[in-house]
């Protein structure tokens, strides 16, 4: 049986930042080609403002590898890629297009800067000892 420890009291780290309030009313979208609806000013954020708890942070190469690549490449699903000196440029292309059964990853998943970092990390890291071939 797995016993799970419960912490008695939980304290949130308040990293509050006020969300941007409603933007300027959109206008001037008329055209002969379509029939634009009448826009109303977005009102909900002023009604009940929402504070942001956490936004996704920019990740370094090791983090991207751990949070995405390793789930397959260290688990016998994809081939081992650490310690094999694969060229970073070719890997970047494969990440974006998804070679064979591998999914593709968009710039919204892994930014260009994160892609550069993770391919350099993979290209220069020593082999790992996890599962795989």
């Amino acid at each position, binding site marked *: *049986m797995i016993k*799970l420890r419960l912490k008695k009291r939980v304290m949130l780290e308040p990293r509050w930042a006020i969300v941007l309030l409603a933007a300027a009313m959109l206008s001037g979208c008329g055209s002969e*080609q379509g029939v634009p*609806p009448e826009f109303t000013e*977005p009102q909900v954020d002023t009604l009940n403002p929402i504070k942001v708890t956490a936004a996704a942070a920019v990740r370094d190469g090791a983090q991207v590898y751990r949070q995405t690549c390793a789930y397959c490449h260290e688990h016998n699903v994809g*081939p081992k890629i650490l310690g094999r000196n694969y060229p970073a440029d070719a890997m970047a292309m494969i990440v974006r*297009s998804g*070679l*064979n059964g591998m999914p593709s990853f968009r710039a919204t998943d892994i930014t260009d800067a994160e892609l550069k970092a993770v391919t350099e990390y993979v290209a220069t890291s020593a082999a790992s000892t996890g599962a795989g071939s």
Partner: protein
Amino acid sequence: MNDLDISRRSLLGAGLALAGAPAFAAGRAAPLPDHIDRSTYDQILREFRSIVGDQWAIGNDDNLAPYRKSYVPDIDGQHAPIGAVAPESVEQVQAILAVANTYRQPLWPVSTGRNFGYGATTTARPGQFILDLKRMNRILSVDPEMGTALVEPGVTYQQLHDYLRDNNIPLWLDVPTIGPIASPVGNTLDRGVGYTPYGEHFMVQCGMEVVLPSGEVMRTGMGSIEGSNTWQNFKWGYGPYVDGLFTQSNFGIVTKMGMWLMPRPPAFKPFVFRNQTFEGLTALIDAIRPLRVGSVIPNGILTMGALYQVSMFRSRAEIYDNPAGTLPDDILRRIAAEEGLGMWNTYFGLYGTEQTIAATEPVLRAVLGQVEGELLTEAEMGGNRYFEHHKTLMMGGMSLEELGILKWRGGAGGMLCFAPVAQPRGSEATAQSALAKEILAKFGFDYAVAYAIGWRDLHHIIFIQYDKADKQQERKAMDCYVEMATRFAERGWGSYRTGVQGMDLVARQFGKVNQRFNKTLKDAIDPNGIIAPGKSGIV
């Protein structure tokens, strides 16, 4: 090329090949809508870029390759998008909608687009921009006492998981099989399921913010009451309950979603029930149903076929040297035994305290002791990679191991899901399995399936695994899907969800009145037809 046999030279070669012809691995370009010519398209793209920045609006060129990648068949090139635009705020979504309304340019919203067996970031009808909401990735609130969260569409399960861990919040997620790269919003809006007691994701959804096609922003449930703090506490609000209208539909763009999270229990015990014969399924489902209906087993029960399990980590070519026909049962039985699996492997858990689990386990043993098979725990199965995988899922943990099934047939990979619903009765499951096996065998595909036993329902998730680079296999996969969807519906078994290749077909099966009702709503809410035309067959 075998994925596991990759070499430095082959990888370099693949990279160069992709550089020369990116569409090879990632699908082909799609045509523009009839009413939009090239100069109008260029104008739309310019206007999108002025809203989100040049980097986040992509035209119909090589940079669109990641969005074209899809594992479902696209025989006539009807499903690839013609561009993508990625806003980072509600205000940008509204501005994009204004442009889309002006030019009647359809947008296909995705949260993370990881529903791989259903189309990912491809579209039901041609001529659409992907509205990629992944950049809207803020966790807006987590309330440890209420066990609630409010998130944007681009928040992944991994991101939320890390947040809970880093802040020592004792709440569990409930994940689909690919939690690290999928999102709670996307999975819930497609009415996906998971594996803890909170596995029915739409049931534990609470409150939405929706940008309507007009650009208006609506909060559902209690979210539009001034000063309310119960948006994530009370699902129903007042008057018509509308949240369901924004799932598997195209009536609005969900930009915030509330959800309930399960308090981490003091104890959890995972089990697997292992059947050595296919025929054992009948008695097992009849025996286990009362345990699920009565919530003795509180989580979604997953009965995994041996072939699906094996294909997570092994390829067909290494097991069987004949690519034609279906994998013989005797070979599958031998490989399953090597892996510590039965022909059916049923995973479930007990959650509570040590005392409640100790009191409940004898009930399970008494009931399942009447059925052929073995009830096993960590004592016997600890370390087995399949058991460990399902243990992780039943605790809301992160895994991508099931992505392995995409490459069962090698080549470019390929997978198409057909997911009919039945009553959880042994007779129904047995009849569905027989029909599925017959049709799959006719087209030369293997029987790779899982049964998800819900509170009152049985989902039979059938994975048609093929090599998309082989055009003959792609055609066969599509034909196989159509025959299965048609013949199952003739028996009264409809789909709970379907991919972009089958949305019109399934919508017709649910009847003309339902179709007219959806169209009436669509015409009223989205008169220019700009949001995801063709989603669930609604145009």
